[in-house]
């Protein structure tokens, strides 16, 4: 079946079976392989994308449910020229190692700070506790998100 949606600002038509998850459609139909699958049962958060402004686990959403939606993946958060302020903060604070959970961390944190640019450390820990990371021990991720808040304040 054909699914019409907007991904990273572009209108796209996806040909996919009804059972195809949004994650598989993004990865394989559109080649947006920045969205990673760590568990495919909604626990690890690596596949998180932003659908109509909300952080969503793309392994638990069918592609067909994205009909008419606006989807943003990690690839849509920066251009080829420079890292976004949030991405740059992750790099500055060494908030990633193997990079596999990172797209989900970035999308989840972006959705959080877009709504709550003043989120404190407890709030950040609470919201991002749904995203598993096996490498970093999380401490630098919290620092990175805290440090990126300024970029989301005012005008954004």
């Amino acid at each position, binding site marked *: 079946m054909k699914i019409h949606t907007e991904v990273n600002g572009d209108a796209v038509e996806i040909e996919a079976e009804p059972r195809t998850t949004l994650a598989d459609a993004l990865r394989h139909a559109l080649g*947006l392989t920045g969205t*990673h699958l760590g*568990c495919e049962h909604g626990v690890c958060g690596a596949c998180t994308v932003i659908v109509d402004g909300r952080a969503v686990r793309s392994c638990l959403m069918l592609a067909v449910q994205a009909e008419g939606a606006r989807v943003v993946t*990690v690839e849509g958060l920066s251009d080829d020229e420079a*890292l976004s302020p949030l991405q740059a903060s992750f790099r500055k604070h060494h908030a990633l*190692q193997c990079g596999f959970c990172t*797209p989900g961390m970035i999308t989840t944190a972006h959705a959080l700070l877009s709504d709550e640019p003043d989120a404190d450390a407890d709030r950040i820990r609470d919201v991002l506790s749904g995203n598993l990371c*096996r*490498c*970093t021990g999380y401490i630098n991720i919290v620092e990175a998100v805290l440090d990126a808040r300024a970029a989301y304040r005012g005008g954004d």
Partner: protein
Amino acid sequence: MPGPPIAVATDMRITNTYIGSPIERIEDLRFLRGKGEYVDDLKRDGLLHASFVRSSVAHGIIRAIDGAAALDLPGVHSVITAADIGDVIPMIPLRQEPLPALRRFEQPVIASDRVRYVGEAVAVVLADSPALAEDGADLVRLDIDPLPVIADRASSAREETLLFDENGTNSPITLTAVLGDADAAFRDAPYVRRESFSVQRYTAVTMEARGLLAEWDADSGRMTVSGAVKVPFAIRRVLAAQMGLDEAQIDILENDAGGGFGVRGEFYPEDFLIPFAARLTGRSVKWIEDRREHMTASNHARDAECELEIACERDGTIRGLRGRAVVDLGAYMRTNAVTPARNIVQVASGPYRIPNVHIEAALQMTNKTPVGTYRGPGRFETDFFRERLFDMAAGDLGIDRVAFRRRNLLTSDEMPYSLPTVLPYDMNTECDSGEYSITLDRCLEMIGWDAKADLQGQLIDGRYHGFGVGCYIEGGASGPREHVRLALEDDGRVAVYVGSSAVGQGLETVHGQIAADALEFPMDRLTGVFHGSTTYLKEGFGTYSSRSVVMGGSALVLAADDLRASIRAAAAQRLGCAADEVDIIDGERAETPAGASVPLGELADAVPDAETSFSSNKRTYSYGAHAAHVAVDPKTGHVAVLDYVAVEDVGRIINPKTLHGQAIGAIVQGLGGTLLEHLVYDEGGQLLSGTLADYLMPTMSDFPTIRVE
């Protein structure tokens, strides 16, 4: 404090200062944008996707495998079983500590007549999409007659049921660490205490599960396998023997990898079956392990118990340590299955002066997923056994537990200090250097040990407070050698090829720092650090046992020395002067004192690649002390880690940013293993914690306060 033996180039001048600088990682630029390339990101035309049929029975005889219904499904291409492989099913050889007696317990690449754990591969279904392959796998009918299940160490030791009837035992080997005369030390000892300890089964659970893409070119007879990590050259060696190919016919390629921690990258059954499927069908075949599959198909770890006994003088001076550990090995002896048990006995005495040691570790087979090395294999277990027993002994003797440790910690005067010999391997190693008490003192100071002593055991706001402290040593830099190649490219920059492997630890950045400093080049004069793949070098050893920086890094320093000499020689010829008059400026040009110069790119054809190895069989021993302040809720049993301090002497620091990141991440993994993670089996050999909803890993909320120095 002395560091590990990084090789020192003869004419190296420190004009750059990358080593020791917390520079931001090169890798991050692609990872943060979603531009990393992990194995499932690889695309090929005409690809077949593999899904495995795995045993749901822990122990049984295979009566029949019926793939007919699967083959009837449109889109399913083939169902491969042991019968398709031939009369002789290849075995997966031990990579470390091999002994002939152990090989009888190795794993076949596919179960043919008997299954020995839930998750053991029985058949491979190939189809046009991953979903169709899974549909097909669901339709394969397995007829397995169950056998009695060996669900734990005790029933394994009773040997009423054998995993391998022909071997006559469920215990492949017992290792023994020996130093001095333990029995004599225990005889007439003023104080003796014996206790039993255990560490449960858990494992790495990398965020990216395993995956492989195999491509067979029948015309040229070439096999290309992507998705390798850790030990690509060893993978190639095994695969070549199993498939009857020359190593030169096989390329093993490394991609970005979502974590390793020792578990990922060893030779697994799939490492044969996917390339085999590609050759059988003449099609490219991809397999991506799903999470549930990962929990039974990838190596498990830990799962050891130990009865440990200590003998002391009344003043707390340790006379001896003796005991017996039993490691639950699971159903087969995998590539590095001996290593955890070896470490349990070898570093049982840790950083302490214990003159008499006799500790055994028996490997015991059960109907569970096989175990392998995982982050601090055996050390995590044995450090806990020892440090906990020390606390008990100090308590009995009425000695402060810190004073007890201080009395027995090794001093720099005693280095090098030989650890017990491990039999039957006759393996010896020694603590190389360090002042162990400094890390303990600093750790206690940072956590405020003395100031907070009154809190110990106190009930405050409904929680009991407590403090713990422990010391450790960690052997790294496994030999025998590592290989690198530096190539001067036409644009005048240098390409860095290393046999070390990247598992997410920042290898490209850290090796880039070492190479740039050794070459006296700015880092942007490197085209990149190319790692792991067998296409880059004639040999390589890989990334395990904390070896990449010491072994690979030291090889880079040697190679940089060679490349600079070649550049000088080529420039001298071009500029008509002596080689030792040539200066290499900014990694851009070679110059004479008179001011004549040539861009390095123009010398590329005249400068041979600098290819060299660094060899060493001497292990490095980092060490340190950790202390924790916890609060326990007696109503729920919940343990809150209020503060955690680690002070470690790791030798020379290449990148403080990545080093601290590694240390914090490792501590949180360790806390997960201590407080959260457990691979739980029932008496029928079924894994009960086989999803991430059941297997609890630390989240961002669990351990917010970790301090590392």
